[in-house]
């Protein structure tokens, strides 16, 4: 069963749709990346998937139809969305941010254990545990946002432009971390990225968005030379 099955998804902010008739699927354990130029509709796609904007079409999460659901209902169904710009609770502490990731989980006993687990994978968070999240650097906040997403034990983790505003070395580390998470825990990921090279280095599947439509789907991230030149410029 696919983790995410999207059919005929259209969404926008006004009269004209920004994305139209998007079809895509993510299988368990895959790292799927959505590539495209600025303004192609990547973030709109993410927002439509988490229900932040009105959309038409069908979205299924592990077989559950979440098409008409509100954002918080989708989050509770297992869709964790790390938004563009990270969306950390800046005035709350790292600890509180992590606890908030688990806020809709009923199994309170395991939450503390999970916090420990993620702290060991993101040690920098441990050193800043009681610090206000807004005082951390961009890279640290990105890790916090991802850890927060993971705290909910999601079926699928959506990440919107994780490299935005981060230094190259940090983004490289970050992507390696994501790859490792996927390898060790089987975490399913749907990434939206402008940095195509970096994204493709860890992707098992890639989609290209152009003018709001999915142009191409590549399994195993093996891209034809034609597409490479068209979209990546080399």
């Amino acid at each position, binding site marked *: 069963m696919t983790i995410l099955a999207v059919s005929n998804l259209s969404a926008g902010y006004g009269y004209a749709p920004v994305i139209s008739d998007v079809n895509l699927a993510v299988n368990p354990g895959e790292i799927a990346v959505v590539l495209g130029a600025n303004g192609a509709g990547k973030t709109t796609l993410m927002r439509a998937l988490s229900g932040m904007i009105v959309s038409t079409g069908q979205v299924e999460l592990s077989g559950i139809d979440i098409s008409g659901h509100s954002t918080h209902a989708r989050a509770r169904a297992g869709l964790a969305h790390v938004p563009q710009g990270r*969306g950390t*609770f800046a005035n709350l502490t790292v600890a509180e941010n992590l606890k908030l990731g688990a806020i*809709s989980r009923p199994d309170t006993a395991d939450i503390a254990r999970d916090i420990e687990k993620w702290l060991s994978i993101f040690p920098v968070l441990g050193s800043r545990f009681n610090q206000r999240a807004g005082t951390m650097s961009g890279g640290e906040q990105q890790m916090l946002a991802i850890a927060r997403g993971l705290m909910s034990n999601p079926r699928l983790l959506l990440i919107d432009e994780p490299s935005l505003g981060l230094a190259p070395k940090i983004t490289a580390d970050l992507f390696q971390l994501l790859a490792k998470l996927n390898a060790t825990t089987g975490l399913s990921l749907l990434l939206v990225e402008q940095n195509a090279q970096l994204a493709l280095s860890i992707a098992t599947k890639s989609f290209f968005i152009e003018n709001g439509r999915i142009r191409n789907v590549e399994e195993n991230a093996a891209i034809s030379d034609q597409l490479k030149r068209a979209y990546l410029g080399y």
Partner: protein
Amino acid sequence: MQFFAQQLLEGLAVGSIYASLGLALSLIYRMTGVANFAQGEMALLSTYAVWQLITWGLSLWIAILVVLVGSMVAGALVWRVVIKPVQRAEHLTVVIVTFGLYLAFNNLAGFTWGFLTRPFPSITARTLFRVGSVPFSSSVALSIFVLIAECAILFVILKGTRIGLAIRAAAENPESSLLVGIDINRMYMAGWALAAGLGTVSGVLVAPRVFLDPTMMISIIISAFAGIVLGGIGNPLGAAIGCICVGVIEILSGTYISWIGADLRILVPLTLIVFVLLIRPAGLFAVEDALRV
């Protein structure tokens, strides 16, 4: 000296009552961005409800408890029905709506119960305490004690419970709250419910002192507004401190400045408001809130 201490305590007591309402105002503002001028009249309706229940035979404590719960439901309802539709609209709309609510609720009280002034029972028996050589009444002690209790309860709820964390998150970042699965609308209702409860407490504390009539809460809300302007509108703790300061300043200036009679006492918080707005509009303990206004 003893007289001064007495006046000071009275100021603290009055300030504590303002702070109950100020906490409510600040909580609502922090959560939903609305400075709810109708909060005082909502408290007025609660107080009348208590009076009504007592008149029908309930004991004071039961009546207060029942109304406390009822007012919390009502507060949540007010948000849901009136405020939610206009919350995302222009700020001016929301402000006007709160004044509309103020007028409506105030006159609802007058319409239902008339304009007669009525006595209202006090929670504590009228006993006199003594700290050192300074006497103070039980109502003074009660007001101060209640405020401390409220602050403690709020602190425990907001900082120590899951739902408190969710409420704080919803106030801080609604979008991210949705993304972690928090139903922010429910949190807003919870915030308004809490605030309504706080308002009810302030009404029940005021009524025994000044007697119950539809004009009872207007000066209280003005002073509470002065308190939150002084303390910084988005900061509940600052609001409480600000309100206490307003209470002390009001009582002391009323006592020691002779031409401020009972009729001009309201000028004290009004002058404070104008003063703070001129000099430091964000208040003494302002929380950075550039987008709100």
